[in-house]
């Protein structure tokens, strides 16, 4: 076995002296992960940067207007709700209060300005992603029924996620206001039907119905984010995994397969270059030589995974999860990459063929497995299809681990991936042994 290890270490040394190979193994996954992570927004690490929102609430009288956002407004949401309803609050103040609610503080930074021009100027200057303009007299118009009213969203066309959130929040406020108006109208009609004919009597009834609707609506959460999370047993199952971890895991797995195929191809390279036949003339059994080659594939990919995880830890502050599931997932990940690589190399006759076959197969596996969308489970048919590949199972397991899952939580994916590894490796070994018998 010492000779097998000598062969493996020689191959690992050669691989880590090969700058293009290193770029593929280590630099490419990190760079692509950064690029993909940036696509989600943010220039610090991989987190989604808060969207800057500017609000021109012209509807609320100046004395009642909330100060600049954030904490101050969010500190008293209940009071704001009451202000906007029972105490004659405006639609504008309801919009401000919704945008500055506690649940959105990580996503939105809200600033209030006095005029519509100030708001649009800030968007034009790139200082804000979206401006919300609540026109003067909107509440009064709605109450009198003279006008339908209109809230304007003025958005930076290059931004999508932040303005989308703001739009959803404003739509929700409008829906509540419309609902309150409808409740008031319905109460008035019911009063008329019951014989109440004096406007002085109908008005308070309608107002009371509208207030009641708003209070009930306000009692529900202001904004809910539909987050999908796997079931984990750990206590901190609500742990936020961020963007960096899932994206880097996807890239790491994809490039582990590519690196494995690169190293496994050295079997064919050495055969073509004459070093493998020369090895066969030494007093080293062929099984030991092949074992050495296979070990080198596994070791190289294992080192690659460890380096990438350490880089992720220090560069992107990724919390990979518990040591036990990390260790097991890294080992089975390296194993399945090595197994598949050996299997695919055994199907090829030349190094050129091997490169084409492995690149194509691993790209398809990555697309089907979901490597390019991180660890998130997209659900639907794709969520099922991805589990045809070891990539999908690995991503599923890593997602669980990133969220604090234990070794027991990833047992099934680990077993499935190990099965993939064993099956492909045994087939590859059998073909190679037959070829070099």
């Amino acid at each position, binding site marked *: 076995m010492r000779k097998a290890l000598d062969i493996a270490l*020689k191959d690992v040394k*050669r691989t880590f002296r090969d700058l293009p190979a290193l770029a593929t193994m280590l630099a490419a996954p990190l760079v692509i992960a950064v690029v993909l992570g940036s696509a989600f927004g943010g220039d610090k690490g991989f987190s989604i940067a808060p969207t800057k929102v500017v609000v021109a609430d012209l509807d609320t009288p100046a004395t009642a207007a909330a100060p600049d956002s954030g904490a101050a407004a969010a500190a008293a949401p209940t009071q704001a709700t009451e202000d906007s309803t029972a105490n004659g609050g405006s639609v504008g103040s309801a919009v401000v209060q919704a945008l500055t609610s506690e649940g959105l503080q990580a996503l939105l930074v809200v600033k209030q300005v006095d005029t519509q021009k100030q708001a649009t100027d800030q968007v034009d200057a790139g200082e804000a992603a979206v401006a919300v303009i609540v026109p003067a007299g909107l509440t009064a118009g709605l109450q009198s029924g003279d006008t339908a009213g209109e809230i304007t969203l003025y958005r930076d066309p290059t931004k999508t996620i932040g303005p989308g959130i703001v739009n959803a929040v404003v739509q929700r406020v409008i829906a509540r206001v419309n609902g309150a108006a409808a409740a008031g109208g319905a109460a008035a009609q019911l009063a008329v039907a019951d014989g109440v004919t004096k406007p002085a009597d109908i008005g308070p009834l309608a107002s009371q119905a509208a207030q009641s609707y708003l209070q009930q609506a306000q009692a529900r959460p202001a904004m809910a984010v539909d987050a999908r999370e796997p079931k984990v047993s750990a206590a901190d199952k609500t742990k936020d995994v961020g963007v960096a971890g899932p994206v880097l895991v996807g890239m790491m797995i994809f490039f582990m397969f590519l690196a494995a195929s690169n190293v496994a191809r050295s079997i064919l390279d050495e055969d073509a*270059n*004459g*070093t493998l036949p020369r*090895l*066969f*003339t*030494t*007093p080293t059994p062929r099984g030991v030589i092949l074992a050495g080659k296979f070990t080198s594939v596994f070791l190289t990919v294992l080192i690659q995974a460890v380096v990438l995880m350490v880089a992720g830890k220090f560069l992107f502050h990724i919390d990979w999860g518990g040591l036990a599931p990390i260790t097991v997932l890294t080992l089975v990940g390296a194993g399945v990459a090595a197994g598949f690589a050996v299997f695919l190399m055994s199907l090829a006759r030349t190094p050129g063929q091997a490169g084409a076959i492995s690149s194509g197969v691993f790209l398809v596996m990555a697309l089907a497995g979901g490597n390019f969308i991180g660890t998130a489970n997209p659900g639907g048919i794709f969520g099922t299809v991805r589990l045809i590949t070891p990539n999908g199972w690995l991503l599923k397991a890593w997602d669980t681990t990133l969220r604090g899952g234990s070794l027991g939580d990833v047992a099934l994916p680990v077993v499935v991936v190990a099965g993939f590894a064993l099956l492909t490796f045994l087939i590859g070994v059998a073909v190679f042994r037959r070829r070099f018998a």
Partner: protein
Amino acid sequence: MRFVEVRRLHKQFDPPKGTVAVDDLSFGIEQGEIYSLLGPNGAGKTTTISILSCLLRPTGGEATVAGASITGDPAAVKRALGVVPQELALYPDLTARENLAFWGKMYGLRGQQLDTRVDEVLALIDLSDRQKDRLESFSGGMKRRVNIGAALLHKPRVLFLDEPTVGIDPQSRRAILDGIKDLNRAGTTILYTTHYMEEAQELSNRIAIMDHGKMIAEGTHEELVRSVGEEATVTLSVDRDLDRSLAIWCSVEGVTSAEAQDDRARLLVGDANAVVPRLFETANREGIRITGVNVAEPNLETVFLALTGRALRD
């Protein structure tokens, strides 16, 4: 039993219709001998060495190396053997020392013993000062020397060298040939394949000439030359009347045959030193002007030509 014994060796690729690369080949090599397989490309030399190195299985026959059967005990054969393949079989991205150390490990060397042998071999191939340089920075001749050195680390009792001087400069070739002689003087038995008759002639105790997988002649250089006669070939160019010249020279004492070949007269003569002056005298007398002359003493090329009708380098 001879140190290397080959009996009726046969190798056919993809039987039953594939190429027969080695056909009923038998020879033996004494311990301490340099034995050359000489033949053109495709003669079966490399296939023979591959079989004797346990790299290919024969489809017939048997061979032993250092008393061990290549089919029955290949591990013992490999322990006794050092193989220098025709193509460079090294790792260009490793240094000379790393390459030698790796191949030494494959022959079971470890620790201090390995370090010592690597130092010795580096000195032997005269590359001690370049040991830390990667092979990709070496010249062709230097790489060839490392290629040979990698087969010497375990002090093999028998060394197979498959055309080790192909494609290198004359100076490096000279160094390699001298090195092989030194190894042989140190007791290493050597099987050497080449298509350069000069190398076979210079190095070998005995030579086997191969063509189309068969051995067509075997013996010492002198024996082989004698087997086709000891006549020299004299080639003469004349300004005119080639047919008349041939007829005249046919009757000159010492000329055994004369024929036209490529507008020149090709004569086989017993003793070129004695006959050539007579040829000139006759030509002067008959008014024939000789415009060119070449004298070739009998050699392995002559032998190959006589046995196959083709030149060795065809």
